[in-house]
């Protein structure tokens, strides 16, 4: 895998469609993920973004970082907006008012936009079977508004609305497994990815875009600001998320599971938690509790790959 990647870089498209000069924080791996997704999709795409960090940092009027058509309407409706664009395209092509060019429709949003407030709109769009790709950039909280918890915030993480205090220890619920929920919609393509693994990510995005019907890619996107790590540690933390089994990289094609990045022996979850300020308060007991959960979830996933 590693060696293959070294060769693959040379084959990568040089063009950027999400350009430098945006206003993301230093070391933002969410912005990196956006850049990789845009690179993977090329210029024949229409992008619809939910409100959130990625929208704010890339579209302050009258500037833009988008070299492809891009629109933003609101926080919770990117999936619906893009269903509309896709439906409009289909109608116009059928009626001979627009040429069929195989344009890709990409809706994107953060974990808040996807797993919480935009959950219904996404479910509706998936169920209706639009030919579009939804990418969730999961930085595990509402970062744009100041690191509030979402249903995708991991157990134990301290955020500004799930603070670690004298009585509570941070987030008290387990992270919602959004990829699994999308799989339950019986869509043809679902994958997880992380910007620490750019080739795996881009390959999945391209595959998702080629898939007729709805496709979903859930990207773990390290946020140094919200996770309380140094900007130069983002890629490393993303790798640890995968190597510890906290965030396995897999895809589900027509219901068939495959782990795309085998890690062999999983590293202890503690290796992932310790460097991050948001988990600083966790006691060994809690870390053990999290380890048990991660191991169990990983085993469940592996079992699914054998089905």
């Amino acid at each position, binding site marked *: 895998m590693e060696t293959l990647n070294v060769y693959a870089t040379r084959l990568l498209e040089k063009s950027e469609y999400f350009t430098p000069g945006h206003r993301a924080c230093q070391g933002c791996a969410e912005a990196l993920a956006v850049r990789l997704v845009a690179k993977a999709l090329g*210029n*024949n*795409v*229409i992008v*619809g973004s939910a409100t959130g960090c990625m*929208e*704010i940092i890339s*579209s*302050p*009027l*009258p*500037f*833009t970082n*988008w*070299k*492809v*058509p*891009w*629109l*933003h*309407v*609101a926080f*919770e*409706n990117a999936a*619906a*907006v*893009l*269903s*509309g*664009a*896709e*439906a*409009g*395209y*289909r*109608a*116009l092509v*059928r*009626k001979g*008012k*627009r040429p069929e*060019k195989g*344009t890709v429709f990409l809706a994107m949003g953060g974990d808040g936009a996807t797993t919480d407030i935009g959950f*219904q*709109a996404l*479910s*509706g*769009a998936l*169920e*209706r079977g639009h030919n579009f790709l939804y990418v969730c950039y999961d930085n595990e909280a509402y970062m744009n508004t100041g690191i509030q918890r979402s249903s995708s915030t991991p157990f134990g993480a301290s955020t500004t609305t799930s603070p670690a205090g004298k009585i509570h220890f941070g987030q008290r619920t387990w992270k919602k497994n959004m990829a699994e929920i999308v799989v339950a919609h019986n869509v043809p393509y679902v994958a997880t990815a992380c910007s620490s693994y750019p080739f795996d990510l881009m390959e999945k995005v391209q595959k998702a875009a080629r898939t007729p019907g709805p496709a979903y890619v859930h990207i773990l996107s390290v946020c140094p600001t919200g996770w309380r790590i140094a900007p130069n540690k983002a890629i490393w933390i993303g790798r640890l998320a995968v190597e510890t089994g906290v965030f396995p990289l897999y895809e589900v094609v027509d219901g068939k599971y495959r782990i795309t990045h085998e890690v062999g022996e999983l590293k202890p979850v503690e290796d992932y938690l310790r460097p991050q300020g948001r988990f600083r308060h966790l006691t060994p007991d809690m870390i053990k509790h999290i380890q048990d959960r991660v191991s169990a979830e990983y085993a469940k996933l592996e079992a699914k790959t054998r089905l």
Partner: protein
Amino acid sequence: MGKRVGVEVSIAAADAVGMANVDVVAAYPITPQTHIVEHLSDLVANGKLDAEFIPVESEHSAMSVCCGSSALGARTFTCTSSQGLALMNEIVFIAASMRLPIVMILANRSLSGPLSIWNDHTDVMSVRDCGWIQVFTETGQEVFDHVMWAFRVAEDRQVSLPVIINMDGFILTHVIEPIEFWDSAMVKQYLPDFSPINVLNPDHPTTVGGFGMPGIYTEAKVAQNEALVKSKPHILKAWQELGAVTGRYYQPVETYKIDGAETVFLSMGSTGDTVAMAVDELRAQGKPAGLIKLRLWRPFPFEELRLAARGVKRLIIIDRAVSYGGPGGPVASEIRSAFYGEKEMPVVTNFICGLAGRDVTPEDYIAIYSKSEKMAQGQVRQEDYVFYGVRE
């Protein structure tokens, strides 16, 4: 020439949308709008309309889908009512700011609570300042004609704004009326193909819906307001040309028995008809009654209104919504400000009635007239209003 048929107004409205050859319809059912969506799905299912019908999971998504499809350059329609409008509220405002020429029929119904499915204007008044062109209709024919008109105005490159056609729930949506359908030659003559200035297209990438720092937000809003204000001549022209095609000439403000009238009702929507009956009776009794019907609600027709009310001594504003703790009804407060400081400012009395389908008969309007006369003899303050017909 069009054909006259007896048909439920909702069905005619949907047929008009179909004849406008809409590309995308996204809607969610809610009483009393349901027959419109049902009939549109029917037209699509039977191949009579080549459009994408998107059965969304909520009104919020309906308006969101409309934004996407309109931005893509597709002719787009939705319809809703009451709670549905309330749920899509956020996106209604955004659609106007993005200058997306979506057409929406609003089957006017009261807002909850208490939950009610019946007609008044509380739903549309909640989006008074949403930036859409807003028009009221009185008959089924007007609804049909205004579907064509709405697409024509919205998609006019000099306008490029969404349009709400208000249509009273049940009173219009569920009645059978004789309606003259347009034939396809009329549609073709009146309604050009949709060719927007900006569309989402990879060949010409644009960024739409960027975010506004304090240094640009005001300017964006000034531009948006100007667009709505300046849509007026295009609105008038579209009515003029509609008249040339159909023989029916619509005005932003219409009057009934206004000559010599001193005490004049002002109403919106389907109540106009009932008020006119009261005016007939009052005139027969020798009273100087008249009626002004406000068809165009946004952009507000200040000039036409002042012209229509020239020489009128007293205005009786019929409101079908409440501004809780405020100046009575939303229509009255707009009318008062339209006349404020004018040399001959009529005395305005404000009656709130017909909430949630409560019947208001010609006799009631006659009673309102007398009450208003009595009030006008004393001093009427700006904030005075009357809930008419409240049970003791």
